[in-house]
């Protein structure tokens, strides 16, 4: 809402002009030329130039945010022949600018002094009001409580209707429902699916179930981390993993954990990326079938013990037992853990569910100190990032993204092929094959695609536009268009009325649009790293 992308997401999640009017590739897709829109100014009146864009991209690359590698292949450089031209040189063919590159453009004249600082140090810098180019700038912040955004007088696009938007943090879902009910907030964002009945019962509230932008997964540990880890050998056996997938009733997980607010999981590309998402053909689906799971485990050589738990010959004949940490940061993950425990008990696998904090989960993932875990993923609408986290490269180094460090040469070569393929149709075929391959190899089990739930007061706010168009976000996830066009609902009812009854609320500049952001309730964009808010706000 504050910062712009060079190209931004269009209503159908493709790239459309933003501060850049266009970005065009050379024939080999190694050089892109972006034309910056003339006359754009920062909120302090300084001009926004191609140098700011180049600075921002270099900044992101220098600070080594792993997820930016989807846009900037190693060795990417930027050139600014004039204030309105950015030339983007990549050593390999790339479609980065058109993903579009999800790296915000920040002002070089403000941020330049941090360019050489350590990222942890920069996170502590507090700048209010800040200098940005988007429709709103942050004018006051009380971390942990609320953030106030005020209209940016220099914004280059349509003038937003609201003067101010306040983000209020709720750490309690029921309190947020009450606030919406009492009209203290106009929009609530990130509701737990369990609250749908309560939201539906409130008069004048419309619920938006956003097409699933996430997938909740059960990931197995393969122990290929750089550092010594503690994997369970049995899980390297594909039959065991398949048996586990067969033993889990995904529909029951949806019905009991996300009633009416999710669909059963399938592939690692979520439904929001509908162009790329593959529906697994029915003959290849590993549907719920505990009998088949039992048979598969018998066949794989894990005989049932007398106490109903199978014996693991690969672990000195001790009981087949999984440690399953679940992150309390993910809605419903403890319940999912309990269900998995129940399902796997029926096929003779003992599960030890252990809820941990998100930070602890990150440590376990980094150290490979788990057998399987329940977490979630999200990413760009373009599948590149999602697919990249399953490559062998995603296991390298500190802060690696891979769940359990599955390494597979076939998959790696498929990924390299889809990266190099610039023809969308040809690429689609590869991307679908990759989804099928991951589904067949079961390095993770995609359990569910939960919906993101927003709700707003129809008697208070109108003009919200979803992104993507069909069942999209009404708030800021993929851009600020909705926040620019939003206006008080009264305008619809009486467009011609001119203050017949005192001051209309929007003239007072104190409209509260309240969203839950951050906190334990919310899915963080881009998966595993917690340090992205600063860059991406």
């Amino acid at each position, binding site marked *: 809402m504050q910062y712009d992308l060079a190209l931004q997401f269009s209503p159908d999640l493709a790239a459309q002009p933003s501060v850049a009017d266009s970005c065009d590739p050379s024939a080999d897709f190694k050089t892109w030329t972006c034309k910056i829109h003339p006359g754009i100014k920062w909120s302090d009146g300084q001009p926004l130039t191609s140098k700011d864009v180049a600075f921002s991209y270099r900044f992101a690359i220098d600070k080594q945010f792993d997820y930016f590698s989807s846009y900037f292949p190693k060795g990417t450089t930027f050139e600014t022949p004039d204030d309105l031209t950015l030339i983007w040189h990549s050593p390999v063919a790339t479609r980065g600018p058109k993903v579009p590159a999800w790296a915000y453009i920040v002002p070089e004249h403000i941020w330049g002094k941090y360019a050489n600082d350590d990222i942890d140090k920069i996170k502590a810098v507090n700048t209010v009001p800040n200098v940005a180019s988007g429709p709103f700038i942050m004018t006051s912040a009380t971390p942990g409580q609320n953030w106030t955004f005020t209209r940016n007088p220099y914004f280059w696009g349509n003038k937003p209707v609201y003067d101010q938007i306040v983000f209020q943090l709720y750490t309690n879902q029921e309190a947020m429902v009450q606030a919406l009910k009492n009209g203290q907030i106009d929009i609530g964002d990130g509701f737990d699916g*369990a609250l749908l009945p309560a939201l539906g019962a409130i008069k004048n509230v419309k619920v938006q179930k956003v097409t699933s932008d996430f997938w909740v997964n059960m990931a197995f540990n393969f122990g290929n981390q750089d550092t010594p880890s503690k994997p369970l050998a049995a899980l390297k056996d594909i039959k065991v993993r398949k048996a586990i997938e067969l033993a889990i*009733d995904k529909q029951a997980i949806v019905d009991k954990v996300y009633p009416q607010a999710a669909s059963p999981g399938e592939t690692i590309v979520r439904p929001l990326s509908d162009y790329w998402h593959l529906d697994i053909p029915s003959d290849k689906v590993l549907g719920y079938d505990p009998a088949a799971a039992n048979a598969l485990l018998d066949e794989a050589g894990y005989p049932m013990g007398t106490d109903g738990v199978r014996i693991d010959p690969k672990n000195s004949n001790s009981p087949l037992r999984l440690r399953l940490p679940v992150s309390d940061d993910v809605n419903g993950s403890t319940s999912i853990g*309990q269900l998995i425990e129940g399902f796997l008990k029926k096929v003779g696998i003992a599960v030890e569910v252990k809820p941990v904090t998100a930070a602890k989960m990150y440590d376990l993932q980094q150290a490979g100190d788990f057998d399987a875990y329940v977490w979630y993923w999200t990413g760009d609408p373009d599948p590149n990032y999602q697919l990249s986290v399953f490559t062998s490269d995603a296991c390298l180094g500190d802060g690696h993204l891979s769940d359990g460090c599955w390494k597979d040469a076939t998959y790696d070569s498929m990924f390299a092929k889809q990266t190099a393929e610039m023809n969308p149709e040809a690429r689609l075929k590869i991307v679908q094959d990759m989804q099928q391959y991951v589904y067949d190899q079961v390095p993770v089990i995609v359990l569910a695609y939960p919906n993101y739930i927003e709700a707003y007061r129809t008697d208070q706010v109108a003009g919200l536009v979803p992104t993507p168009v069909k069942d999209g976000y009404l708030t800021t996830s993929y851009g600020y268009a909705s926040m620019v066009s939003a206006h008080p609902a009264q305008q619809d009812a009486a467009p011609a009325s001119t203050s017949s009854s005192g001051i209309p609320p929007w003239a007072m500049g104190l409209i509260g649009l309240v969203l839950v952001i951050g906190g334990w309730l919310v899915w963080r964009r881009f998966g595993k790293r917690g340090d992205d808010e600063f860059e991406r706000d």
Partner: protein
Amino acid sequence: MSNEISDPTAASGAADSEGRRPERLLSRRQLTARRRRDSFTRNWGMFKANKQAMVGLGILVFFTVVAFLSPLLVSADAIDPAAASGPPNSPPSANYWLGTDSFGRSVLSLLIVGSRVSLLVGVTATIGAVLIGATVGLVSGYYGGTRIDTVLGTLTDWFLVIPWLVLAIVMAAILGPTLFNVILVIAVTSWAMTARIVRAQTLSVRRRPFIERARALGASDWSIITHHVLPNVFPVIFAQAVLTVAVAILSETTLAILGLGDPTAISWGRIIEEAFNAGSMANGYWWWMIPPGIAIICVTLAVTMCGYALEEIFNPKLRRRH
């Protein structure tokens, strides 16, 4: 039989001139046992006369029986989220007397199973708390005025003054959510009151002449504390322990509701936590949230009623106030 107490007036065992039957020769142990039995009968009589106490005891017996029989009353499948077959979040009906939770499990089954952990934690944590509290109180009181007393007294004060919930949350978060840790946390955070009361009682007991006598006869501190002070302080400890059970059960509930309980053990507090997380208040799933609350209220109330009755019995000063 060197322990025999010989009564010179009844040495022969025959009836004396006034026709009273002679007391049989009793060993010291038998004598003590009889004294205890008498005192028990007397106290039980007083307890029985107290209506509140009897109601409380009745409730406690009921819940204890339920807790012990829970494996017979509820099958393991009925509380397995994956195996539950009921309709999720349904209000009370003929099949599900107290409705179901979001997994479709019967709330009544959860309540019965939950009684086990709630009572277990309540009782074990109390034993822990009372062991710590009584030891600290006895030692501190017996050595009243010395440096040991000062150190233990300060420690007790520290635990009394520090907000227990904050301490409990920090400890539970560090130790991790297992049943044992929950018990440990509750024991560690709720012994201070017992220590205070036991110390006060010990201070008064140790000034009594028979303690002086024992010391004059050469009894060691250990023997005086265990043989003379402890039996005299014990009623106070017992009454205090009963009251602590209520605190322990409430503490377990509090920790569970805050998400610091053992997530694999179903207790009443955990049922409330799950209900809360599932938005049962906003959604109006009262049947999921209220029954465990009522169960907790009943048990803590019952324990408190018994505890106060015992306190009155063991501490005559309290009786005079009526």
